[in-house]
């Protein structure tokens, strides 16, 4: 390991590494929507950050210590002549005891803080102020239910900023993991079990998230967004969501509504007051959501058209095995009408 012989070169190398790290963390400020290294956006994520940062520092200390010793030994004790006859040291009880006990004590300290936080984070918030949400994992989209308001929506989780949100989660098929990194660490969403987590956002904002447990073919396309609203905006949203859109009676939208039934869409999707399918996302307020299909496509006419032409070509799914939306072989005219209907579901 004859690493960079001159101090100047070593300094330059160090500067380059430092610059790289600064660049990486600097970028994080604005452009890293799932970054957990800095800028947590809620009290829970912040607590996690405060817990890990000192551990990262301790790790950095040992990193520098060990690498420093290795590099020093490699340079200082390199063989200069084949006749060298080093002193045969077989060990040292004192030293070995030191590097057993010191790390053990340090780890005990880390352990105490870990356990304290663990039990703190396990507390379930109670009271009328707490918003309750049921998260249900599906291959490959998220269903969100608000039992207090009788709202069902998909992929887009609206919460009031500054309030604790108590989440109960389960899955209808395989194991998923619900992860909005800026607000909290992930919790697995397991069929047959109910897990709990708490999230809270400091201020209104739009927070990325996605499924973090491999859940089959389209695991990568199971994303979500947590949208924290001000209390007033949240109340408006709740009011909108609890009022079903009127069934269109004229034009393309009305024809689309008829197609929604005749083409079988209604067999999988619920539109309150019109259809009651339970396989796919609830579409009652489809047009209020910014993106669709596991939050991967912008919700606009162009993307909807592409989607309706052949869904499995847009997002890997396995409709032959009952997983995901099949190609319904719609004509362009039918697609126009269905889009008009979907647009009416505000």
């Amino acid at each position, binding site marked *: *390991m004859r690493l960079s012989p001159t101090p100047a070169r070593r300094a330059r190398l160090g500067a380059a590494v430092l610059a790289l790290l600064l660049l990486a963390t600097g*970028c994080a400020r604005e452009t*890293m*929507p*799932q*970054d*957990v*290294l800095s800028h947590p956006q809620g009290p829970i*994520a912040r*607590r*996690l*950050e405060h*817990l*890990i940062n000192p*551990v*990262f520092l301790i790790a950095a200390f*040992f*990193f520098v210590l*060990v*690498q420093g*010793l290795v590099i020093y*030994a*490699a340079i200082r*004790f*390199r*063989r200069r002549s084949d006749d*060298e006859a*080093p*002193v*045969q*040291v077989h*060990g040292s009880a004192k030293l070995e005891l030191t590097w057993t006990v010191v790390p053990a004590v340090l*780890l005990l300290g880390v352990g105490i803080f*870990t*356990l304290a936080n*663990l*039990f703190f984070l*396990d507390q379930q918030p109670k009271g009328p102020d707490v918003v309750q949400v049921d998260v249900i994992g599906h291959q490959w989209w998220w269903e969100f239910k608000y039992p207090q308001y009788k709202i069902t929506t998909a992929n887009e989780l609206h919460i009031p900023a500054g309030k604790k949100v108590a989440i109960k989660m389960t899955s209808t*098929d*395989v*194991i998923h993991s619900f*992860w909005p990194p800026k607000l909290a*660490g*992930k*919790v*697995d969403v*397991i*069929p*047959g*079990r109910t897990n*709990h987590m708490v999230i809270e956002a400091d201020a209104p904002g739009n927070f*990325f998230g*996605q499924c973090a447990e*491999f*859940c*089959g*073919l389209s695991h*990568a*396309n199971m994303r979500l967004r947590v949208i924290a609203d001000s209390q007033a905006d949240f109340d408006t949203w709740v009011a909108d969501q609890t009022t079903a859109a009127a069934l269109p009676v004229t034009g393309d939208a009305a024809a689309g509504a008829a197609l929604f039934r005749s083409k079988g869409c209604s067999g999988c999707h619920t539109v309150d007051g019109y259809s009651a399918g339970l396989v796919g996302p609830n579409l009652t307020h489809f047009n209020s959501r910014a993106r669709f299909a596991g939050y991967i496509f912008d919700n606009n006419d162009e993307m909807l058209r592409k989607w309706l032409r052949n869904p499995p070509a847009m997002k*890997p799914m396995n409709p032959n095995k009952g997983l995901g939306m099949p190609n319904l072989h719609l004509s362009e005219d039918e697609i126009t009408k269905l889009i008009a209907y979907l647009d009416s579901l505000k």
Partner: protein
Amino acid sequence: MATVLEPTTIEATPVPREPALMRRPKATTGFWGWVTTVDHKKIGILYGVTAFIFFLVGGSEALLIRLQLAQPNGTILSADAYNQVFTMHGTTMIFLVVMPITTAFFNYLIPLMIGARDVAFPRLNAFSYWTFLCGALFINSSFVLGGAPNGGWFGYAPNTSITFSPGHNIDFWVFGLQILGIASTVGSINFIITILNMRAPGMTLMKMPIFIWMALVTSFLMMFAMPIITVALFLLMFDRLFGANFFNPAAGGDPLLWQHLFWLFGHPEVYILILPAMGMVSEILPVFSRKPLFGYPVMVISGVAIGFMGWGVWVHHMFATGLGPVAVSAFSISTMFIAVPTGVKIFNWIGTMWGGSIKFTTAMLFAVGFVAMFTIGGLSGVTHAVSPHDRQQTDTYYVVAHFHYVLFGGALFGIMGGTYYWYPKVFGRLLDEGLGKIHFWLWFIGFNLTFGPMHLIGLQGMPRRIYTYDKALGVGWLNMMSTIGAFIIMVSVLVFLYNALVVTRRQPVGAPNDPWDGRTLEWTLPSPVPDYNFLEVPVVHSLDDFWHQKYTEDDSGRLVKLSVSEAPPSDIDPHSIHLPSPSYFPLVAATGLPIMAYGMTYRVWLVAIFGAVWLLGGLYAWALEPSAEPHDPDDDHGPADAAELVGATAPALGAGPGPDAEPAEPTATDATPSQEGE
């Protein structure tokens, strides 16, 4: 009844000539020499070469993964192809590369380092290899038979159930791993018995080379861990084939049962992968530092401690599954404390180098690289133990970075170091040092460029096992760096191949017995090692016995070279050494397993039954074949039986040489006979 057992009837029966089928094969060279071999050295080479070929396969899979992820929204692979490739990359690197390569080292080196002529059960050893090969080919045949396993190497239920994975992909994984599990279990038992029973006279446990200690601990871990995954796979098999509901929540089963079983195997498995490399590094560092291993007893104890503690940390793979704070806190603490014996090892390795006379051969570069890189993996491992924050880390690329620093920065660095170190002993030629150093630096730079950025990629929120990611995550350029690093690793591997297959082969065979000024018994033997290993079984007086024949210490502890008097040529005729006879039946029996597996995979029960009968037939013939050619004048021992156990000078089963045992003087009769019964 009495008449049947009447002795005179048996005595009256003339001994029939063995039917041709039952004669032992004789070839010791060429194709049949390799196919029928029971020589631990040949089996070791077969293991090593096979595993290296699978390293190229698993590496190609890694390159595909990196190509796909080089940029956001990659289009090199479809989602389904990506899921197959990442599943097979993990499965291959663990079960078909690191485990068999370490088995190759165990096979080749254990008898040489403990002064034995072979392992305890030579035919079982061959069976172990052929079973491994059959399992490896079976699981990879899925690529051309409709699709490789695609449920991840961890195969979480219920995604791997017949409902959610209806194809045969997962069946190949279920049966392939069961076959590989048989190979590992059988191999581990063989190594344990060899180490405990066949050490040279005088080699007490605390005079064993540290590599042998790590081999022993690893073998115990394997022997206990493989049955656990086998149970899990058995349950999954019943779910998939026969409609059982072990992991089906709708019928009262529990998907978390799979995770507990899998990780109760899976975490000791991590130590199965890393402990052998720790052993290799612990042999290499002293040799090239001209100093004994710092704190040998502590190194032994910490290795054993890791072996025990490795069973008590599995839930750290499951911190996000909602097990509750009590369970999670227990496993957080145990996970933190397994870092203590690991840290002790790291500091003791540095202590070994400290004050030494360090020669940077390629083997030493890899060993020092191991210490530096494994440390990084160990430190990130401690951060996982901080369980509340682990929920931010788990299932992201941060974990991918962590375990590659352990398994690549650790296991593979150690294995590469071991390869450069022991290559001359195995093949009689020294690998080219110049190319070796190019290999090391490219490998070192490529490794850090590939996996270093993954720490950031993960902490910036990119989950694992996704075939595509959003540009908005902002991790595109880091992923590009990582992909470039992976191709630098590829170049370094090509340099190694060029070195081993072209440059080194230009030299004549003729490496010196002891090219590195070694410390352990294998360096007393010619390179390559003759069939019979030791002409005379050595008598061991101390740890690093060979070193103490060459050097001593003066009053201040400094090294003093002894004038070694040339040992008088032995009067033992190598031809008089009776070696275990080759056999067809380990291979025959092993091939029954994939036949069974294909039958089960495709639910063609007759084929499965045929495979089982074939396997039993192979085992039956194995049991009945004679110990050597009939009428062989050396063979006066009758049919093969438990006599396999009798080693050259091995004491009885279960009674290793005690710590105070006076080493027995070897006599001519001690030295000449060898394994009987094979």
